[in-house]
């Protein structure tokens, strides 16, 4: 998109907006939550999204995708964020397809990417082990044996991990916790023997799972990329994931801002519309400012992905940190400006706040990415 959408991108954005408003409005997500749906998203919705081509939007045409690029994916994610639509777009496409495209062998790509593009395969990547995102701290062990590798340990906060057909696992094949070297990516079946999966009931009622590996055996074919080179491969994938998630958060935060602005124009107190109180006006103007700055960053970062800029990592951290702080602020203000009604479960603004807090921590918090940005830029 560069910094302005071209005509094709405008059409994509408009159709994504209409799609989610129609097929996955906030009420749909609320229903999933209230009915304690075990999958955590609508498979029907995912099929419809795949039909729109979005499951394969970044996948090369050679593997059945649209090869439309990350700017398009960012637009879809932004619109998905606007209605809090739950889908495996982040887990399956950003993480799963992303890893295969980055480091997969020809055989792996041919086998899996077309299925992802057609919406028939759910994939995810299992990274986290502690309270805070920090892939270099991976301790999860893969021991090599005659037939391949044996995986043992726990992975947490695995997005869609309880329903993914296949899981890519970041595991240590050498070195120590803290080393970037010695980490390897393995492709594991969701139904593998020795693997126990438990859906985590998160604040945002979205999808994350705890995966317990008890001597799970995989063959040598299961390795993705180079043995010991998993960190570097994953880092590029995570840059894309951070930018994509920032786009989704921007959409959500924009929605909160819009509903708050509407409320300011409609709610009366002390005989006046509350939006006519200057302190609220200035705070609204400040939110708008943060959102405009965020928008520039997300567009820049998504474009950088398609242009293979050498600034991608920097821009990914910038986007995740900056949009994360914006989202935190906007959701706080959203509730405060709505007053009591915003505190009730039946109002949507609370759903956005909950989603924001989880998204803020996914793939690294703002603090994590500020530190990373400083490192990348030699501060």
């Amino acid at each position, binding site marked *: 998109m560069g910094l302005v959408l071209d005509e094709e991108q405008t059409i994509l954005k408009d159709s994504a907006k209409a799609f989610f408003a129609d097929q996955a409005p906030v009420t749909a997500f609320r229903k999933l939550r209230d009915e304690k749906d075990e999958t955590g998203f609508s498979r029907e919705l995912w099929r419809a999204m795949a039909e729109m081509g979005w499951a394969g939007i970044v996948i090369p045409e050679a593997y059945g995708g649209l090869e439309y690029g990350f700017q398009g994916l960012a637009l879809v994610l932004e619109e998905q964020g606007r209605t809090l639509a739950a889908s495996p777009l982040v887990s399956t496409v950003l993480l799963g397809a992303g890893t295969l495209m980055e480091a997969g062998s020809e055989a792996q790509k041919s086998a899996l990417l077309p299925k992802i593009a057609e919406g028939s395969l759910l994939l995810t990547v299992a990274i*986290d082990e*502690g*309270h*805070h*995102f920090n892939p270099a701290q991976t301790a999860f062990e893969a021991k090599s044996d005659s037939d391949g590798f044996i995986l043992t340990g726990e992975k*947490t*906060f695995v997005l869609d991990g309880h329903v993914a057909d296949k899981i890519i696992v970041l595991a240590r094949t050498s070195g120590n916790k803290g080393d970037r070297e010695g980490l390897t990516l393995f492709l594991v079946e969701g139904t593998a023997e020795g693997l126990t999966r*438990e859906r*985590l*009931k*998160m*604040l*945002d*009622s979205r999808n994350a799972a*705890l995966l317990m590996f008890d001597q799970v055996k995989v063959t040598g074919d299961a390795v993705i990329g180079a043995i010991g080179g998993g960190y570097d491969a994953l880092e590029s994938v995570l840059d894309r994931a951070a930018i994509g998630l920032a786009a989704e958060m921007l959409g959500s935060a924009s929605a909160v801002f819009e509903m708050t602005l509407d409320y300011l124009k409609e709610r*009366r*107190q*002390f*005989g006046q519309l509350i939006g006519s*109180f200057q*302190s*609220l006006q200035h705070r609204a103007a400040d939110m708008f400012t943060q959102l405009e700055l965020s928008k520039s960053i997300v567009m820049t970062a998504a474009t950088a992905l398609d242009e293979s800029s050498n600034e991608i990592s920097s821009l990914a951290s910038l986007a995740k940190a900056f949009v994360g702080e914006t989202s*935190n602020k906007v959701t*706080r203000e959203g*509730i*405060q400006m709505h*007053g*009591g*009604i*915003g*505190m*009730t*479960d*039946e109002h949507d603004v*609370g759903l956005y*706040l*909950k989603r924001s*807090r*989880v998204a803020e*921590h996914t793939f690294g*918090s703002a*603090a994590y990415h500020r*530190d990373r940005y400083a490192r990348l830029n030699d501060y």
Partner: protein
Amino acid sequence: MSNLDIFREEVRAWLAENCPPSMRTPMGNDEDVVWGGRKAKYENPEARLWLDRMGAKGWTAPTWPKEYGGGGLTKEEAAVLGQELGRIDARPALASFGLWMLGPVLLEYGTEEQKKEHLPPIVRGEIRWCQGYSEPGAGSDLAGLQTRAVLEGEDYVINGQKVWTSYADKADAIFCLVRTDTSTKHEGISFLLIDMDQPGVTTKPIKLISGNSPFCETFLDDARTPARNLIGRLNGGWEIAKKLLQHERTNISAGGFGAGGRAAALEELAKEYLGTDRGEIADAVKRDQVVRHKMLERAFAQTLKRMSAETKAGEVSPASSIIKYVAAEMNKDRMELLVEIMGLQALGWSGDYFSKQGLATTRAMLRSKANSIEGGTTEVNLNVIAKRVLGLRDHQ
């Protein structure tokens, strides 16, 4: 021996005799709080015994006059009673909006008959009261109240809806602000007592973003109350409401979600979740945020002390105007910082994977968002400081 010393010995002896053993243990959870009322259930019979004994002495309302069931104690005696109850870690015999809010109003504005009728049951915990102020269209701005009360013969007939009525679903009666004159704003409001045990009153609990809550919506559809239950003068409820709100604000912030104490210390959690480096919180940036917060907490605690010292010295304390505002914003920031520190552990909603403390933190972070809304919004607090304390004026 002074009179007070003698009194202290009497109290001590009486407590030794009358405070049941289980009432000297710390409360386990909210279920252990005794609210009294017609529908009260006592899992622990000693809780009921303790209430009955304290109620009979009037010591649930130590300084209220004896003729209305109170303890009739002087301030000094009441302080001694408090100290002695504290000394044996006695549980409060009764928690009650009747004691805290309605009682003082009745003592100041009630007629002799009204005091005689309502105060003794409050002291003994026989009637559980709730308060009905806010309405869907009138949050910070009570002048916008729309619940109407119309005199029909001997009764007022009330129609409207109240919201944020704490424990309305468990209460026996409600003290309400109602509109008795629609031609003016502030001047058309009255303070009315209504029995809730009638078909015209229904309640519905409110679920918050943090989960279940004590709050309810309360619907009044042709609810009736005898005209004698009007407190103060007709259309004079605004004055009573202002006093009560002020009282509520001070209560909330001083005892409520204020500085530290209740939850685990921020710095300890930071060490646990972020690790340590030579004994220090390993993440220097977060450590700085923790210090900032601790400094603010200390400044707040000292300001509370100063406020009470000033009040004791008979001075008007301008600091009192900032208390609610600071407490609310501080607690919200504290909870956000805790979530930052605890990461994934404070992002759970339920389930065994998350620690009790983690889940409690998640919920508390969400619940804290209301701190700057309930009992006077932060915006209203700032308006009050600007106008009443600093003397700034509205556009002319």
